[in-house]
């Protein structure tokens, strides 16, 4: 497969995330991924970008979030970068989808699921913070 690359940047507002998600989903479909796989990639990107806005920028809208998508050698590589507050390393390392008792309504989880979902959807996820720029990289084999 030829190498292809897309880069998008939004201002850090939650209302902008749908624009990114739609573009990522369309790009995945354009390179031959099926609807299910494209939807999973959109979900993973949206979860990471939401985290950037809510945690790195603490919902201030004067930051930027950039997403680059590269496809080569049957591998999809997505980098999400921001210049907000860095995520402590243990957050990604320990992220899982919460376990719970389905019958215990009062204690059902309402949040804290995003990175655990991303780790289930991608083969590799890693995070670096260097010189004020935070980059989360996700890799998925096609």
């Amino acid at each position, binding site marked *: 497969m030829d190498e292809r690359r897309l880069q998008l940047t939004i201002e850090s507002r939650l209302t902008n995330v749908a624009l990114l998600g739609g573009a990522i989903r369309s790009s995945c479909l354009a390179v031959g991924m099926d609807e299910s796989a494209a939807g999973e990639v959109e979900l993973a990107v949206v979860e990471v970008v*939401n985290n950037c806005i809510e945690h790195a920028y603490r919902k201030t809208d004067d930051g930027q979030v950039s997403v680059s998508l590269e496809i080569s050698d049957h591998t999809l590589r997505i980098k999400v970068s921001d210049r907000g507050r860095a995520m402590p390393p243990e957050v990604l390392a320990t992220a899982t989808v*919460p376990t719970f008792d389905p019958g215990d309504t009062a204690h059902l989880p309402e949040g804290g*699921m*995003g990175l655990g*979902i991303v780790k*289930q959807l991608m083969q590799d996820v890693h995070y670096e913070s260097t010189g004020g720029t935070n980059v989360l990289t996700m890799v998925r084999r096609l």
Partner: protein
Amino acid sequence: MNTGMDIVEDRIGSVVVVRVKSSRIDAAAAPAFRLALAPFVKRGLPHFVLDLSAVGFIDSTGLGALVSSLKAGTTPAGVAIAGAKDSVAALFKLTRMDKVFRLFPSDSAAASALAG
């Protein structure tokens, strides 16, 4: 930008069906989604169907809003999800919320299960 949530109340037999007409339940829409569900969860219905057939995308914040709303009223076990597209149903399964909310292919199947 309008982030309001378009929800319509319907009924199949004796079962209330709440139809979400918006195509996206994401972090931007989650507060409006929670607000739109409030009248239903506070009414004390024993159960109802939530028709998600028009929804093409839901993220974990949207799902969290659903969980949060329903914890405030009707028990989640009394809510049947109808018509979820594959991508929407996938999130319920990934998060194991399909063990909390029963998923049905159609509103009529969900209403039958609740009425029975």
